[in-house]
Every structure is written in C-alpha cells, then in structure tokens.
C-alpha cells in the first residue's frame, strides 16, 4: 500500500477541479446532485483532471461498498450521526448530496458546488493538493433509523437490533449507537478527516454527529499482500482474518445472502463497531510470558505458541510435559479461533485509537474494533466467549454500535443514490 500524500506533477489536481467547479457553475444551475454530475462529466473531458486508473482511487460505486474488503488503509475517521430532521424528504436530499460528495471525494476531487467569491466555498479545502489516498466511504444504518420517523420500519432487517449487554461492556452513552454511520478510510489522515467533515457539513440541519473516532493505525489485514500490523499491546493482530480473495468465506460469513428478510440488503453486510479501551499501563507491567499466554502467540514473531512462523496453524491440543495446554485454555486465539467456534468467522477491520488522557491522567487508547459479518449474532457469539479470555483484565468495551451496510450502489441503476437505495424508490 502506498502511504503517499505527495501530489504527482506540478499542478494540484484538486485545485484544477475546483476551477472546473467554477466553470461548471456557469452552465449548471442548482443543487449538489446535478452540480456534482456536471463536475464529474466535465472531468471526463479534461485529461489532466481525470485521475488515472490505479491512481490511489477506490470507486465509490461498486457491487459491494468500498471499505470492507478493500485492502485496509492505515487511517480511519468514523462518525455516527442521529437524524434530527423529521421530514423523510430532508433525509433523502441529504443522502443524494452525500452520494455526490462521496463520489467526488473518493476520486480525489473537492466537494462539488458553486464557488462564489462572496460565499463560503462548497468544500472545506484541506485536501487541495493531496492525492485521493485510496479514500473509501462506507455507509451504515443503525436499528434506530428504522423506527416510525421516516417510514422505514418495513425496510429493517430482523437481524438489525441493538446488541445485548455483553461481557466487558461498560458502554459510555456518549460513544454508543447512532442512526447512521460513516466509515472513512484513507492512506492520509487529512483525507479521511476531510471526508467526515464535509459529509457532516452537508448533513447540517438534517443530522447531528453523535460521536466520532479517529484511528491512526490499522489492526488487521484484509489483503494477502499486507503485513500483519500490531495493536497497541504490541502483538500482531488479525493474523487469521478473512482475506479479500477468500470468496467462499466472504459469502459464508460476511455478505448478507438470500436468507435475509430484506432483499435490498443482499450483498450488504453488518458492521459492529466497538470502542475498546486497553489499560495500557497495566498491560505494560504484565510480564512477557503472561502477555504471550494472554494472546497465545509469541510477541516478537506473532507465531502461535505451538509454532515458529506467524501463519503456522495453532495446535490447540498440544500439551507441555506437565500436561498443561501450550496455548492456555483462556488464550485469546484459542477462544476466537474458527476451529473452536463451529467455523465461525468475521471480517475484522479495526484501528488503534487514542483520545488523549482519561480523567485520572492515564493514556486513553486502545482498539477501535470494526468488523463486518452477515449477521451481528456472529459477534455476539464470539464476544460471549471472548469475555472469558485472558485479555479481560486489560480491556473494557467503552462504546459501540451496530449498523447494516447496504450493498454497493453498483447494484442499482446508474443514477440511483443512497436515498433511492434506502427508501427503495426509483431515481
């Protein structure tokens, strides 16, 4: 993965686009939706402004949403929103504008709109001069959106309900729940921040941000070419994650299938987000032997305690000379392993986070756990087991939510937006 923030060439692509926006304004009247397409179309006629194929661009419109099996980018900005508008039309309009803005931003363009010298610019501007940075914008809807307010009750899949109380839950209401979630991932933190900032701005008056979290380092790999990153406990995390080329596993454990009671969600997935605090000082005082027993892996290599190489298959049956399990009974990898959970898997895509100091002056940080699955019960099942693992003394779940992420807009007619998808209407 390229962690590039340098603009290739001498002239900023984004400022050129901004200029096009001004030009476009002359010919195209009105709102974000039409304006957005005008800009996009203008781009197609401007060789210098058209991003080259493979130029750090992940298409927003695809069969599945981007940001799920996409090779995991190193930076995250995540936001949960509550819809404050009461008129469904307002929500629809915002979702159309979000579609336009997301399409542009993932192409490395500024948010389209009219530039007027006497008015505020349509884009906040901080990504001008930056590359697209593999930005992905992934949209999810929480259970609470499907209440009586917008006539969406009949569109709620039965699997989409708030998670029950789970072991290690100390959920802070200020970091819990939400009607809508946006996951913005990129190679450049300024690009992911910009995406959330601008979508929030577009949503002003329709939604309010409930909570946000930024992730500064990935804690999983979704692509075979990626090395396994380390979490803040210093251990390689997600070694046995599902990879983007494991189509069978993705169909079996990640993508919503034909058994869903909501046809419009087939090819989508559920997102479970958990803000997991690590008690870093306490962990740092734990002896290395015990740290390795907690995970069931060697810290240096990431190999299971029964292996040499990181990707060696753990031997859960192995015993020491004195009859103890080599990988302890409460080791994280033992309890999480698909072998010990009837094959159950989830697609992990989390990030390390920090929110400064807690009220007692200790570093507040940990894992912002993000995982995709075809039914949130997969997480519930695993977490009920993981509540008993060796990590329990060192972590606490201090926030989180569940959302359903519809399939990509590529499954719909060309002009359909998030609005038509959510409401089931024609473009």
């Amino acid at each position, binding site marked *: 993965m390229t962690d590039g923030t340098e603009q290739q060439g001498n002239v900023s692509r984004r400022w050129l686009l901004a200029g096009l926006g001004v030009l476009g304004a002359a010919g195209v009247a009105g709102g974000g939706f039409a304006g957005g397409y005008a800009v996009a179309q203008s781009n197609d006629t401007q060789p210098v402004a058209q991003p080259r194929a493979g130029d750090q661009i992940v298409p927003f419109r695809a069969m599945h949403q981007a940001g799920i099996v996409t090779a995991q980018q190193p930076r995250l900005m995540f936001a949960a929103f509550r819809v404050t508008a009461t008129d469904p039309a307002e929500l629809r309009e915002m979702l159309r504008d979000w579609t336009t803005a997301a399409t542009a931003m993932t192409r490395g363009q500024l948010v389209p709109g009219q530039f007027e010298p006497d008015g505020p610019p349509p884009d906040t501007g901080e990504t001008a001069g930056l590359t697209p940075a593999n930005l992905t914008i992934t949209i999810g809807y929480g259970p609470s959106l499907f209440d009586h307010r917008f006539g969406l009750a009949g569109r709620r899949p039965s699997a989409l309900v708030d998670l029950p*109380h*789970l*072991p290690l*839950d*100390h959920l802070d209401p200020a970091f819990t729940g939400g009607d809508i979630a946006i996951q913005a991932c990129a190679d450049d933190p300024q690009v992911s921040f910009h995406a959330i900032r601008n979508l929030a701005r577009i949503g002003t008056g329709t939604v309010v941000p409930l909570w946000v979290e930024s992730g500064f380092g990935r804690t999983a790999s979704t692509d075979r070419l990626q090395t396994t990153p380390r979490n803040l406990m210093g251990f390689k995390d997600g070694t046995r994650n599902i990879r983007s080329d494991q189509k069978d596993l993705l169909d079996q454990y990640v993508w919503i299938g034909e058994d869903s009671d909501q046809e419009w969600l087939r090819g989508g997935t559920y997102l479970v987000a958990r803000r997991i605090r690590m*008690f870093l*000082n*306490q962990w*740092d*005082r*734990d*002896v290395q*032997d*015990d740290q*390795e*027993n*907690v995970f069931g892996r060697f810290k240096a290599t990431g190999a299971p*305690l029964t292996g040499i190489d990181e990707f060696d298959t753990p031997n859960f049956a192995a015993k*020491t000379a*004195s*009859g*103890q399990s080599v990988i*302890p*009974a*409460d*080791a994280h990898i033992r309890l999480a392993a698909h072998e010990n959970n009837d094959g159950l898997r989830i697609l992990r895509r989390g990030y390390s986070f920090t929110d400064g100091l807690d*009220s*007692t*002056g*200790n570093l507040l940080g940990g894992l912002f756990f993000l995982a995709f699955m075809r039914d949130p019960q997969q997480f519930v099942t695993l977490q*009920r087991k993981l*509540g*008993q693992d*060796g990590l329990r*003394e060192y972590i606490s779940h201090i926030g989180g939510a569940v959302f359903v992420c519809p399939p990509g807009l590529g499954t719909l007619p060309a002009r359909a937006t998030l609005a038509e998808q959510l409401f089931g209407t024609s473009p």
Partner: protein
Amino acid sequence: MPSSTRPRRGVLAVPLVVAATAVLAAGCVSQSSASGTKDATGGGEKGDVTITLTSSGCEPSPRTVPAGVVNFNVSNNSADSVSEAELLSGGRMLGEQENLSPGLSGGFSLRLDNGSYQIYCPGASQEKFGFQVTGTSTSTWRSNPALVKATTDYAAWIRDQVGHLVATTQSFVDAVRSGNMSQAEVTYAPARVYYERVEPVAEIWGSLDLNIDGRLDDFDKPTDFQGFHKLEQMIFQQKTLSGTNTYADGLLANVKELQTLVGQATYQPAEIADGATSLVDEIQSSKVTGEEDRYSHVDLIDFQANLDGAVEAFDVLQPALRKINPDLVSTVQDRYKAIVQSLRPFQQKPGYLDTGYVNYATVDSTQRKALSQVVNAFGEELSKVAAKVA
C-alpha cells in the same frame, strides 16, 4: 493482570495448586528439592562469580557454573582503562555493571540457562573471556531458602486474611439479615478490606471472584448480579434491605468456599510478585476511578487494602530480593512512601462510615489524577520484581 489460571511458561511446575492437583504438585516439589540438594553439595551459594577488572582483562572466576541464578560480583581495584563488565550471549548484552572506577565494586544477577557466554570489558588488553553455564535451570527459587520461606509465609498470610474475611463477612451478613441498615452500612467496608488484600488469589477461581466481587457490568445478565456490590447497591443506592437475604447467604457461602480453596493453595515467588502488581493495577483501574464502590464511595479503604496486599507480597519477597537486587527494593519502597504521603490528606478519624478516609465522592478529578500517578509509578517498579525472583 496475570491470571493464575494460566501457567507461567519458563517457571517450573503448576503455578498454583488447588486441591485437585495437589498430588501432582507435591511430586514437583520433591523433585526440585532433590535438584536443590544437588546444587547445595556443589558447595556454598550457587552461581557466585567473581570478576576483577584489570588493565589486562576481566577473567571470571569460576569460568563454569551450573544453570540457574548467577550473581556476578564485579570489582575494580586499580584499572584506570577499564570500568565495566558485560555479559554477552552471541551479540546480545544480557547484563552489565558500569561505571566502576578504581576502588568501586558492584554486580548483577541473572538466571542463566545452559550455554556459552562471554564476559566483555571494553578497554582491557583482552576484552572478552569465555564463560560456560552447564546443566538445566530447572531449579531456581526452590534452592533459595529465602524464597522458599517467602512462599510459605505468603500462603500463611493469605489463609489468615481469608479467615478474617469470613469473620467480617459474617458480621456484615448478620447486620443485613437482621435488617439493621446503619449496621449494614458500617460493616460493608471492613469486610471488603480482607477481600481486596487477597483478590489476585481469589481470581484463580474465576467465577468465585465474579460472584463475590463482580460489578453490575461484569455480569452477562443484570439478574445474575450478586455479591458484595449487589448488596452495596441495595444498601447505598436503593436504600433497602428487603430481598437481601439471598444475596447475603450466597456471599457468605462463596467466601467460605474461598477459605476452603486457599487452605490447599501454594504460590511461587514470581506469582506472588505478579499478584502484587495485579493489586496495584486494580487500584489504578477501579479504585482511583471510583468505579469499584460506585454506590458507597468507600473506594479509599479498598485502595488501602489493595496497597496493603501488594506491600505484604513485596515484604515476604524482600529478604531474598534484597540480596538479588537491593536497588529495586529501595526504589519500590520510595515509590510506596510517595503513595502513603499522597493518601494522608484524605485520612480522617473515624472517617466516612468509619473507614478512616473521606467519602471518595468528595475527591475531585485533580486529586484523583495525582493519586493515579503515584500508584502508576509504584506499579511500574513493582512489576520488575517477578523476573528477579522467578
């Protein structure tokens, strides 16, 4: 914190022996005593190596020792050009004594396994000397009488504390059952003191700790909530004793079960040290934050109890540790004194609910932060002890 349901790899035998495995453990004990005896016949304190720095080198004496803890005593009588000795394995430095100008002496201790090592003294005309370790280091703390005594002292202390726990819990339960609210309020904290001192031991039996000391959020279902904190909630938040009998009886039964279990348990020195660190972790994660006693706000007496438990664990190890690493002993003690000093402003007589401390709800966030910082500094040093006594 290190859960004692997990074995410490690299440490001999089963870490904590409960009744069911007592036979196995007894076997291990006698086996390692035997190897300890063999070491002893080797003569004197096992693994003492003398290194005298001279301008020509740093030849260790003896050049071969048995595996186990090795104490390197390094001195410099008159060498101006050489001031340190390092122990190397391959290219890696394992230990060193630096800054020995003529007239000074010092040393370091390490647990060494079978293999070839080098003593390295930069600046000497011969800088490297071979050093051999033979045999296997199965016998470690068991050959150190001071550490063996630490384990028996600690086990006795734990049994004594749990005895007090049963007695004070009985008083608390009696008050609850008799419907005497004010008596229930003042007997709650004193019973907890004994639990908070021995908590890492109680955690060996996972569900027992949960059922005695779990907080509301620790239970999968709110209806499973029981133990001290369930009663705390009813007494201090709901202000009722009706319906408490079941919880009182359950608590007493669990505490008595703990007494039976600790009657059989034994502890290794490194586990005792780990347990001390765990207690400090507890202070930092649940006492300083006020989460532990969220209804009664008697957190400071629990804080003191965790600290007492950690200090007791440290104290039983101290005679041995003083020989192994005296500097660590004094640093830990200094850090402990800083906590004692920081707690003093919050002490009162008789104090809130006779706890000897103020109501923790009156301790503001700046004060909590200051407490957390001294506790953290103590824990950081204390966590270094386990490796020294393993």
